[in-house]
């Protein structure tokens, strides 16, 4: 495991864990809300970035906003750190526990509280999974648009914390564009209502600022999401190319031509082969790279748009072209993409999923550079990503049991992220900073800007006990 500087641990707090557990149970008047046993607590020791672990002092599983408010007020009084947790699918260590703190798990807060199809709104508890929201609204032909590949498991609270996106974010936006209001519990345990059901309301956009704040400003306990009517139809085309750069340039050309498909996804050869082996999605494994370009509308609209996409692709000499003609074919095509991370995971004992963003005009250049960097490190990198948004996901493959290989993989990842910043992009498009990229923040932002981030954090959580050690580098110098 790579070492990571984290805030000093208060051993005396850990020593009093049983006492705190008793107190929390008494406050909530329930016996089933605290996990004390080490074996059970160990289940929470990491999120999906499992190269970092820490077993929390206690895990608490509240049922309601009121429970959360009581727990937060108690922890504030007792100076106990709180790490919020949804489903633990974060890829950046956002939900990594601290030893002298509790994990506040939203796993039991999964109720739909209010559904107003006529306003296209749904209010749910924050532990509700992303996909179940769309499932709930399906009968009214409505859906919740942001669709992270982890949508079966990840929670809407986690999505807000990471401002998660998905394959269809090119058209529909990410989490922040699709939520309108939230119930929020502050570090002191006060309950606030943020945002408004209509979308915008006067005053500072506190709803906006907590989105993407990685659980470091407070707890989201209830969320009102915006639902959208489903398009009459959607059809993807699979386009194969002879090299990465042609595929990259084709993406830029489609967008420059004034077409905004719902999704443009990119997969390179190593990913294609892995996916095909794993999911049998019918991908052309002899291509160097493929794009899935999906458009929506009526049959006639889809035909017109796909025709235009094909025409735009021609100068980049596609070596393969297939339109999904039926819903089954469409599902198969997406099944491959959604299984990509798991499939690539089969290629090596370990992988890091890097998440950087670049202006899409730079795709071809950056893909070439990524190849150079990975070759220099002697590591294999598979690229599967949301190309329309310029959101790269190089998957760096390694074997943690081999000497120095994890350190090498981390260095390789950092270099790729710096490249993203250099070409005008950023360190994270949808996975957040967590602990993984915390120390790269000064590469993106100058000291004055980082100070502004600290000021914000201090306004919400002056003692930095909410998700401590995440997002901002650990530096006294940078604090205002």
């Amino acid at each position, binding site marked *: 495991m790579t070492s990571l500087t984290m805030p000093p641990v208060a051993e005396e707090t850990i020593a009093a864990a049983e006492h705190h557990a008793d107190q929390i149970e008494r406050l909530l008047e329930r016996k089933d809300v605290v996990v004390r046993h080490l074996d059970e607590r160990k289940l929470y020791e990491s999120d999906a970035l499992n190269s970092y672990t820490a077993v929390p002092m206690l895990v608490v599983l509240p049922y309601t906003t009121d429970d959360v408010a009581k727990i937060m007020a108690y922890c504030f009084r007792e100076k106990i750190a709180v790490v919020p947790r949804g489903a633990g699918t974060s890829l950046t260590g956002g939900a990594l526990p601290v030893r002298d703190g509790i994990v506040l798990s939203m796993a039991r807060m999964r109720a739909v509280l209010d559904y*107003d*199809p*006529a*306003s*296209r*709104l749904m209010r749910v508890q924050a532990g509700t999974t992303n996909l179940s929201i769309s499932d709930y609204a399906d009968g009214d*032909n409505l859906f919740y648009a942001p669709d992270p590949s982890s949508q079966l498991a990840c929670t809407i609270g986690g999505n807000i914390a*990471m*401002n998660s*996106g998905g394959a269809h*974010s090119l058209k529909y*936006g990410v989490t*922040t*564009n699709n939520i309108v209001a939230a119930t929020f519990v*502050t570090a002191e345990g006060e309950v606030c209502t*943020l945002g*408004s*059901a*209509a*979308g*915008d309301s*006067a*005053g*500072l*956009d*506190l709803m906006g*600022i907590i989105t993407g704040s990685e659980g470091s400003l407070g707890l989201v306990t209830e969320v009102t999401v915006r639902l959208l*009517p489903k*398009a*009459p139809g959607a059809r993807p085309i699979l386009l194969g190319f002879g090299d990465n750069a042609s595929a990259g340039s084709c993406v830029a050309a489609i*967008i*420059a031509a*004034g077409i*905004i498909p719902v999704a443009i996804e990119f997969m390179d050869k190593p990913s294609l082969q892995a996916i095909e082996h794993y999911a049998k999605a019918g991908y052309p494994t002899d291509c160097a790279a493929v794009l899935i370009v999906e458009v929506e509308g*009526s049959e*006639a*609209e889809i035909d*017109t748009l796909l025709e235009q996409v094909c025409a735009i692709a021609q100068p980049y000499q596609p070596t393969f072209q297939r339109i999904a003609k039926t819903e089954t074919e469409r599902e198969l095509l997406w099944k491959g993409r959604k299984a990509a991370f798991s499939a690539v995971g089969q290629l090596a004992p370990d992988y890091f999923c890097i998440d950087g963003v670049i*202006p899409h*005009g730079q795709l071809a250049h950056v893909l070439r550079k990524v190849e150079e960097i990975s070759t220099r490190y002697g590591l294999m990198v598979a690229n599967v990503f949301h190309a329309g*948004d*310029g959101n790269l996901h190089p998957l760096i493959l390694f074997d943690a049991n081999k000497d120095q290989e994890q350190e090498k993989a981390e260095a390789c990842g950092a270099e790729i992220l710096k490249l993203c910043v250099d070409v*005008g*992009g*950023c*360190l*994270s*498009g*949808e996975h957040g900073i967590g602990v993984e990229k915390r120390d790269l923040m000064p590469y993106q*932002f*100058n000291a004055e*800007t980082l100070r*502004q981030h600290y*000021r*914000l*954090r*201090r*306004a919400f959580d*002056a003692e930095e006990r909410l998700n401590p050690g995440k997002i*901002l580098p650990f530096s006294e110098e940078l604090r205002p």
Partner: protein
Amino acid sequence: MTSVFAPLCAEVSTAAENQQQVRIVGAGSHQGIGFSSVKNAKSIPLDDFNAVEFYSPAELVISAQAGAKLSVLSALLAEKQQRFSCSFRNLSGLFGTHSEDATLGGGVAVNLSGSDRVNHYAIRDSVLGMEVINAEGKLITMGGRVFKNVTGYDLSKLMIGSLGTLGIIASVNMRLRPLAETEASLCFDVLDAQQAVDLMAKSLNSSLDICGAYAAQTSQGYRIFLRLEGFWASVQERVQNLKKLFRDNDLHLMEAKESSAQWSGINNLADFSARDSSEEIWLFSQPASQAAKVVRALRVLSPNSQINLDWGGGQVWCASTDNLSAGDIRQACQDYGATVQPIRVAPERAKGAFALDSGTKKLLQRLYQEFDPQNIFQRQRLYDNL
């Protein structure tokens, strides 16, 4: 490298040293929004900061200085068949100012998204990043130029709608979208607000991709406007489907030119601008399904007011001569999940329009304390009750 904004930074530093409050002025076209400014505040005009810093049509991004005029930017974008991915309401008509003057920075600071917010992006969704001068006179970068960005806190969100109370917005990076090839609208009359809300919902819940749903009060009830945009064949097809959906109504079809003029009027509240300038204008936001109840409650308070619905009912605009007070209004509408914003209202009646729960109030107080401890940016312009 010194920034072009160095003089502005210096002005803010000096103001901070002298503990003097500042008044940030774009074109002054929307200064009427918000509570009043202190009299002796030092004016910081931004008209000279109007350059386009970066425009990449292929990447759908433009970055311009805050003093750039929205009308100039829109014309520049239109040359490449593009536009902002949101629309800004221009309320110059209500304030008796020049509409062509409104600036990008002002538009972002005021944050009134237009009618197409109902299914396109809001201003808050279109801002990708910005440069801001904070209360210490330091230039801060927020966000970036790319579509997805979770790199630290989304600080620029706080600036949108802040009325400049957290700092000076110096430049803004905006997301763009292609201009639609064409548009059309359907318009028809209904009996009352409830029917208007129901039928707008019917259209918005359909898969026809409606990008405007407005209902204007008439002498007989309400007149609904529904808007479609897209490439020509698509608009034709959807118009036919929309006609089928509302075949029981007496429909009027507006072709591209008429439709576009109609919506530009709606966006800029032309109906209200044409009325008595002594009317006070309030804006309500609520779940669309509650809009008719809000209308009913307002009607009781002010029987002769003009009440129009936008965003399918998500927004209610009310013009009244009855000297309504924020307190009365809030009480009448609170059961319907409505929030209230005074748009053109005498300060004494606008007072206390924002209901802040105690947790939110504390958060806001601490935010301002952290960002602007001396209150040089006049937070009372936005909140009269902090």
